[in-house]
């Protein structure tokens, strides 16, 4: 996936479609000119007092119409195909890149990326399927029709070319002024909403003191202020509207007077005057629209640039080793003298983000707990285990193979992870439990949910496993979400479970499930970051972390006997 992709290169791949559309636009403009010539001739004949051959005129007109209809159809298909194909490819590449982007990127940018990406993709769609074709067509018709007008008489063309920029420029200035006023107004509406929110949030005080009316007055006052502002804005807007409309009339008046002058001087014929009218109608809207389309295009290019930046964001390192079935390494996990520092510049959050000389080895089926004060580096250790971050020094072996030699997806298929804030996708419960697996095995999912102690609750829901969770769906308590998250980990059936216990208080049921997961003896190894030391009394080994270093290792009893950091933490929790 090292191939360099950019939106531009994809567009180039399909550029022939765009070129064909451009050529067809040109031919279409030519046909309009052809038609106007027919009219010129016919009118000239009549004005000279001769009869015209109606049949012949109608026949030729029909042909122009039929040909241009066919061409329009083909042109539209070509242009649209171009935009559809480019859009499809760009989207696919975006999502493929997104999957492989380094985890730290999401940690830093999660909120903004979602908001921007969605609107960027839709902007790109608009650019490709509306703005670009418009620009193409406008440019082509402006050029071809301008040439025809120059041929008729250069003075007419000069009239158009001088008046239009003046008109567009002056109406732009007026519009800009109005926009500045509008900006101020937006702020005022926000203030109104803030007052309303203030009133609702303080409703308890409002009711107790009987001051709903007084507070309501704040809304009315602000609304009056806004209204006054709106009135003055409306006056400006009406003035601008009148001016812009009147100014836009100027080119057509000036140009027709020029043409009239030329007719009277016998430089051009009445027939050509009619042709001018037809061609002027075809060129005036492209002339006034084109600058705005170009501005739009430039704005949307920003979105395209952002998408390209996303595609170019560094990917996770991944190698080729995919493991073998008869994996018989002694240690599932082994870390030797591992150290870690965050690359990059955010020094302010250095605390708890560095690790020093970490030695850990975990065998199949072992239960391990990691404890320590907040900021000791527990979560950072998990990130290294998951491959979200790479070790800066020392070695990390997974199943006896250096982690850096693993294919990242193969390595992760060996790990189940239950994050601290259990994340549920806004989908059904079943989809959440089986997330990422190729096929949905309802039986297996039910079993996992039973082990996670959430099956009963799911059965009570009206749609059972098909219940949607999240904003639109059913509201689950923190503990229930946690247990679904555990069910997901159990469903995956990986040889290693990483469990980041939530810091906030657990409900009894969830605490029971976590203890059970830790005490059940099977092939799976479990590593838990524990905040409640009561849950981990029976684990095989406890690593006690402080300031990025392992300060104590041993079973609960051993560590209590040592009377060090662990014993102190245990005492603080109110045990004796």
């Amino acid at each position: 996936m090292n191939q360099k992709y950019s939106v531009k290169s994809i567009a180039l791949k399909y550029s022939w479609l765009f070129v064909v559309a451009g050529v067809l636009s040109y031919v279409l403009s030519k046909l309009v000119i052809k038609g106007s010539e027919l009219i010129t001739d016919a009118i000239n004949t009549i004005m000279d007092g001769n009869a015209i051959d109606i049949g012949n005129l109608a026949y030729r007109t029909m042909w122009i119409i039929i040909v241009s209809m066919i061409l329009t159809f083909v042109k539209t298909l070509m242009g649209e195909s171009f935009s559809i194909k480019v859009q499809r490819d760009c989207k696919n590449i975006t999502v493929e890149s997104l999957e492989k982007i380094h985890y730290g990127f999401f940690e830093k940018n999660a909120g903004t990326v979602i908001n921007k990406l969605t609107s960027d993709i839709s902007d790109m769609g608009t650019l490709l399927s509306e703005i670009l074709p418009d620009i193409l067509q406008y440019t082509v018709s402006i050029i071809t029709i301008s040439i025809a007008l120059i041929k008729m008489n250069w003075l007419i063309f000069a009239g158009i070319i001088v008046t239009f920029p003046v008109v567009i420029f002056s109406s732009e200035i007026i519009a800009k002024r109005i926009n500045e006023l509008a900006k101020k107004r937006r702020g005022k509406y926000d203030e109104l909403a803030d007052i309303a929110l203030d009133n609702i949030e303080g409703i308890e005080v409002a009711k107790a003191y009987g001051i709903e009316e007084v507070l309501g007055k704040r809304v009315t006052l602000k609304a009056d202020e806004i209204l006054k502002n709106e009135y003055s804005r409306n006056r400006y807007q009406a003035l601008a509207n009148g001016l812009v409309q009147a100014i836009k009339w100027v080119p057509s008046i000036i140009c027709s007077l020029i043409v009239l002058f030329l007719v009277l001087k016998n430089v051009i014929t009445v027939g050509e005057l009619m042709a001018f009218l037809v061609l002027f109608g075809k060129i005036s809207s492209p002339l006034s629209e084109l600058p705005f389309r170009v501005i739009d295009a430039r704005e949307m290019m920003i979105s395209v640039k952002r998408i390209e930046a996303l595609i170019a964001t560094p990917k996770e390192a991944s190698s080729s080793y995919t493991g073998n079935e008869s994996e018989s390494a002694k240690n599932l996990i082994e870390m030797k003298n591992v150290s870690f520092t965050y690359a990059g510049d955010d020094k302010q959050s250095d605390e708890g983000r560095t690790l020093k000389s970490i030695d850990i080895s975990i065998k199949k089926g072992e239960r391990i707990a990691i404890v320590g004060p907040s900021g000791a580096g527990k979560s950072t250790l998990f990130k290294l285990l998951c491959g979200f971050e790479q070790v800066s020094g020392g070695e990390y072996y997974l199943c006896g193979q250096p982690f850096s030699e693993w294919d990242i997806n193969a390595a992760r298929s060996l790990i189940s992870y239950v994050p601290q804030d259990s994340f549920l996708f806004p989908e059904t419960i079943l989809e959440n439990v089986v997330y990422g697996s190729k096929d949905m095995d309802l039986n297996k999912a039910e079993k996992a949910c039973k082990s996670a102690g959430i099956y009963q609750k799911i059965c009570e829901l009206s749609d059972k496993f098909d219940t949607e969770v999240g904003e639109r769906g059913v509201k689950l308590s923190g503990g229930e979400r946690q247990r679904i998250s555990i069910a997901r980990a159990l469903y995956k059936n990986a040889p290693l479970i990483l469990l980041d216990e939530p810091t906030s208080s657990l409900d009894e049921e969830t605490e029971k499930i976590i203890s059970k997961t830790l005490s059940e003896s099977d092939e799976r190894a479990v590593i838990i970051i524990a905040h409640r030391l009561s849950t981990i009394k029976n684990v095989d080994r406890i690593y006690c972390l402080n300031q990025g270093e392992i300060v104590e290792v041993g079973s609960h009893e051993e560590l209590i006997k040592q009377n060090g950091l662990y014993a102190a933490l245990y005492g603080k929790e109110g045990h004796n």
Partner: protein
Amino acid sequence: MSITKSLIKSLKMMENRLPLYLLAIVMMTALGALFEVTGSVFMKIVFDCAGKGSVTESKTAMIITIVAGVATIALSSVFMCVYNNEAKRMTLKLKILVFEKSMRFPMTYYEKHHSGEILSKLLYDTDMASNIFSARLRRVMAPIISVTVFAIAMMIINPFMTIVLIVFNMMLFLINTLLSKPMKAVGKRLSEKNMLMTNVLSNMIAGAAISKIYDTNHTGVLKYEKINDEYTAAQRVRMCLGALLETLNGGFDLLCALMFIVIGIIFVGQGLSTIGEVAAIYTLYTSLSWKFLQLGKNFPELVNRIAYAERIFDFLALPEENKEPVSDYAFRQAAGDENAVEYRNIVFGYQDKEKLFSNASYEFPANKLIALTGPSGCGKSTLAKLLLGFYTIESGDVFLFGKSVKQLGLSKVRALIAYVPQEPYMYNVSIMDNIRYARADASEQEVIEAAKLANAHEFILRLENGYDTILVNRGNSLSGGERQRIAIARAILKDAPIILMDEATSALDNESEKMVADAINGLKSKKTVIMIAHRQTTIRMADVVKAIT
């Protein structure tokens, strides 16, 4: 039909402004259309001059036309201003109605609905509904008015050619209407697929950690690419329909233009019309066909907005808190040793939960400091809220100075109590106003007196802007103890016979705690002070300790 009814109901909200508003719509649109008519009249004059080979007779006509054009556009702008003013007036009126309504519900409503949630839904709904006044109605009316104006103008210039053109346009309109249904269906499919794709993306981003660990089979990417293919297929269908529509529109347009000119030429040849008339109708025709296609197009949008208006109507019709007394009841403060508050045989429980009080009775003597104690969840705060009438008791009664709360009515009950909640709310106004909300007519001096009694005066003066300090974000620049003391000042200023205070559970610093205690001590014997007590020091201070069980 209910949609028409709702539209009429919405419009009726404009009251006596409605005729002016409608007149403004008609005038601004009609005048705007007339402006285009003057443009085509100008063309007619130009062509007639060209045909005759001289301008001398038409100079005045040209100038008159231009002046008339400028006049119509100026007048149209004036009406546009009127229209916008009325539309905005209505928008704000709607907002005020909704915001005022949003404060009149019983307390239970606010506990069920999160304040941010209430507001964002309200803002969205009112914005959508007020769109009827500021755009949607006009957009439905405008094409009808414009087409009428153009048709009349064209009829005056040359009726026969106009009829031919209108027939052409009808056919075009028909084609567009026929194709609009499948177009809409595809559009819907596209937006559905688009939403699904966005979901996959946001799942991948928001759940990055989970995706990376669990989705080692790339199911997310595969799903996205599959939907993308479906999306592309739908886009292809739309492309074909679009191309067909564009071809027919464009072709028809060309056909009309050329056929019209051919017919025009024949007419001119036979002396049935002048070349100027052909030119004038040709320019008008472009505007007419454009407006013709707009007919009915904006109607669905209007209907959509009316649905929001209906939601606003529903909201405005929700039951409000009834604060009126049952009977006209003159309140006299009872003398001496009477109970300030008495709960008699009350029964109350939160919805579908166990009863908190079943047949409970409490008596609180007047002008004493009473501490309510009990384990958390025993109903101390609920007892306070029942007194304030935030909840309705199921049976039994509460008496204030011997008078039944039910008969007093909520307004009078609340006037007798100055309440200091556990986490007192600070409004986004100055400290002065925050305290003064207790009594709107209080002088600055009275506010300061109250602040002094509440031990708040000192720290307020130490703030940079003193009493004029604006409290933002619920006053979180102040400490919990400071907020508490401002709330006590507010309660003191109210000068109600009963002060009801829910002591903060969260720790106040020692200094603040002492200050608050002193303030309360100062109130003893002048007022009946009921404290929901969490601290031993408070309980020790009390004249009477009531354990709630």
